[in-house]
Structure formats: C-alpha cells, structure tokens
C-alpha cells in the first residue's frame, strides 16, 4: 500500500506534465532559436561532463576501491561531497576556486583561460556535481568482484593494462553503464551550480533547466512546461535503452 503511494509521488507529476502540456504550441516553442540553443548546449555539456566523469572517475574509483593509504577516507568523503552539497553552494565554491579572484584565478588569467560565463564553465559545473555518482558506482563495482580473475590473467602473462581492458572492464561494464547514465542524468538536470558559476546567457550557457526556470518566471509557464517535456524525452529514451545492461529490466 505504502509502495503504491510512493509510486504515485513519481507518476502523478510526470503524467500531469504530459497531460497539461500545451501540445499545440510545441512547434512554435521548438522553432524558437533559444530553445534550439538550450537543447544544443544541454546535450553538448551533459555528454562532455559524462565523458570527463568517466575518464577521471574510473581511475579515482580504482584508487579508492583497490588501494589504501592514510587519509583515503578523507579523500573519499571530499570526492562524494558534491552529492550532498546544495548545488548553489557548489557553484559558489567553484567561483572561489576558478573565478577571477579565486584560488586559481591569477594562474588561469595568466594562461588566458576564462571559465565562468563560458560553455566550458557549464561543463565544469556539471562535472563537479555529477562525477561523484560515477565514482561511487564504480568504486562499489571494483570492490565487489573476485580479484582472482585478475590474478589468473596475470599468471597467464597479461600486463596490467591488458588485464584492465580484457578482464576488469568487461566485468564492471554493467555498473559502468548504470553509473554513466546516472552521471549523465545528473549533469543534464544541473541548475544551481550552473547558474551561479557559469551564469545564464541564451546561446552560450543557458541549458534547458535554466531556460525552463526563466520561462516560468517571465510569465510564460506554457513555454516552461514544454521545455520540461523536452527534457523528459532523452532521459526516458536512455533509461529504456539501457535497462537491460543496468539490470532494470527483468
């Protein structure tokens, strides 16, 4: 019974979104330049953030899951902090680190690199909040399987990279897919850190969530609803496409 009520919490808003959406205006909204821009920026940045999260997250997960050193629990805590930090706080922290007056401000300035207010800044903000999801998923996966497979490969003469590529990776592949999907979803939906660190500019940093927020308050709630529906589409598609690998299908 309780499960049914809990399920309703998810079903009702999604159904309401689809039912109440002003479908007749969808052509007009999708045709607007700012909508196209928001879709393009959202897709580009969320995929880039996911890629970065995988490239950086797997080694990090490996170190956390397979090695030990004094202070490892602190490293783990700090790496997973963005998961519990309010996103806006994350944005402020990023500004204080990579902003003009931040810790790395002068060095970035000297190198001619500017991160806030750029699309790259959106990617940084999204990676900051989303990578922990990949690290946590992968760390659990790397810990959980039998190390003897790798040992066997080693005794048969395989080098470390070969072991990783041919033995470890295939075994953790389902977790990697699940982690990547989670990471991508988090990056796609990111708002607080993005608006604080990267700012909001249609065509450069305004992602779909930002566009929906600003549409809502400019007295165009219908546009906000349609933008939200657009956001739903890739999310549902990816969830459906990966359900076998993530074990969500029976």
């Amino acid at each position, binding site marked *: 019974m309780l499960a049914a009520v809990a399920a309703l919490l998810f079903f009702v808003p999604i159904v309401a979104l689809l039912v109440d959406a002003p479908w007749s205006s969808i052509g007009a909204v999708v045709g607007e330049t700012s909508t196209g821009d928001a879709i393009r920026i959202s897709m580009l940045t969320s995929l880039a953030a996911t890629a970065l999260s995988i490239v950086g997250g797997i080694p990090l997960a490996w170190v956390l899951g397979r090695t030990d050193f004094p202070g490892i629990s602190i490293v783990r805590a700090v790496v997973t902090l963005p998961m519990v930090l309010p996103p806006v706080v994350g944005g402020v922290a990023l500004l204080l680190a990579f902003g003009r007056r931040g810790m790395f401000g002068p060095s970035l300035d000297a190198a001619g690199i500017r991160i806030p207010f750029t699309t790259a800044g959106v990617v940084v903000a999204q990676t900051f909040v989303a990578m922990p999801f990949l690290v946590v998923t992968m760390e659990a996966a790397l810990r959980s399987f039998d190390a003897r497979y790798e040992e066997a490969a080693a005794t048969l003469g395989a080098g470390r990279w070969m072991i990783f590529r041919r033995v470890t990776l295939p075994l953790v592949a389902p977790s990697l897919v699940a982690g990547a999907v989670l990471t991508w979803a988090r990056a796609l939906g990111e708002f607080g850190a993005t608006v604080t660190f990267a*700012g909001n500019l249609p065509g450069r940093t305004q992602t779909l969530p930002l566009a929906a927020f600003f549409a809502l308050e400019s007295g165009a709630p219908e546009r906000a609803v349609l933008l939200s529906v657009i956001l739903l589409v890739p999310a549902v598609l990816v969830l459906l496409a990966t359900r076998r690998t993530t074990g969500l299908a029976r």
Partner: protein
Amino acid sequence: MRRLSLAIAAFVALAGCGGGGASAADRKLVVFAATSLTDSFERIGRDFEASHEGIDVEFQFAGSQQLVAQLDQGAAADVLVTADEVTMTRAVDGRLVTGEPVEIARNLLTIVVPRGNPMTITGLADLALSGVEVVLAAPEVPAGRYSRLALARAGVSLRPVSEEPSVKAVLSKVELGEADAGVVYVSDVKGRSAVEPVGIDPAHNVEATYLAATTAAAASGDAASTFLGVLTEEDAQRHLTDAGFLAA
C-alpha cells in the same frame, strides 16, 4: 528523567517567548517585495511591528517577475511590491491584486564596478568595449528591462556575459569580482564597500517606479491596507530615501 523533562519544558517555554516578541496569537502579514527593497523594507517592517501590536511582518524578496509568477501559482501573500509597472500590470491582469496599485518610491540606475574601477569604466558606452564582461538582470526582471532601455537610449549595443534572475544577483557577481561591470539601482550600491558606482548620463537614465498593492488572496486585508498606507508616510519614505531611493 525529571530534570530532563523540566529542562525540555523550560526550553519550549523560552522558545515560545523568542522570535522578537511574536507569539502564536500574532497575525502574520506576508509582503512580497522586489529585491532592491530588501534593506529599507526590513527597517520599515521592524517599525511597523513596533507600532502595530500583534502583527508579525514576514518578507519575501525576489525579482518582481518571480513574485508575480509565485502569486499566480497560488503563493500566499498579503502585499505585493514590484519594481516596475509591467510586472504589476501582469498581476492586475491576472487578478492577483485588488484595488489600485500605489506608487511608493522611485529609483534610478547606475553602473556598478568593483572597487577601484579596474577597467576604468566612465559610462554606458564603455560597457560595450571588447574585453569588458558585463552582467545584466534578465530581460523579464524590471532592472533588466530598465537597463536595456537606458542602453538603447545611449545607443549602446552590448551582449552581457550573463543574465541574472534578480538585480541583487547582478550586484553579487560584480562584488565577487567575476564581472567587470553591471547595471543596478542607485540604492543597491549604497553602503556596499566592495563596489563603487559609475554614473549614467541623466539623459539616458531610466526612472524606475515601485508600485504596491494588496493581493486578492490576502488573509488579513485590513493589515495589508494599513501597511500600504504606512509605506507612503513620512517614516517609511525616510527609510527609502536614506537607502538611496527617490521619494514617491
């Protein structure tokens, strides 16, 4: 165990007495006001509570367009104060407010730069120079509308690096040193040590009009009207002009 329950009882009693003298019997007056009014309205609110026994004033400050959107979605407020006519008209058209809106203050715009004016901005025209990172309020925010009007009057065409959801957010970005300049209200710069104002040519400047009205959903209608009346009286007007606003 006895000691603990006594301690808890004492704590609860104390907690009940706290909160600036507010008790469960106090009526709550919820005021939605534009962010630029934050400091002055908090002082006006304290005066109002002191002179009107039994009323507890609660403020919600946000961009005027956000407040109207929230009222539209059913938020409970008694008084709405916007920073321009456009958002108040939206509220009137949406039947979110009752009665005739009253003008309670005016404001002028100013350019704001980090203290020391590192990019040596001298006026609106300088904002369009390449390399100057300018932050403006989003077009649907009153300050955003006014800024763009002033820029148009000055014949300056610029692309900001970010469009913020409220005028205070513009101020923050400049205070943090992230933006080289922003356009905010004169009242926003008063007393902020991390920034300094750069004047806008009076011929291009835009006068903002602050309008106040009681909401249709007001729970305490008479308290709301009383508050509205107080806003145009001498004491409240003094708080506003002290904060950098122009009198109504």
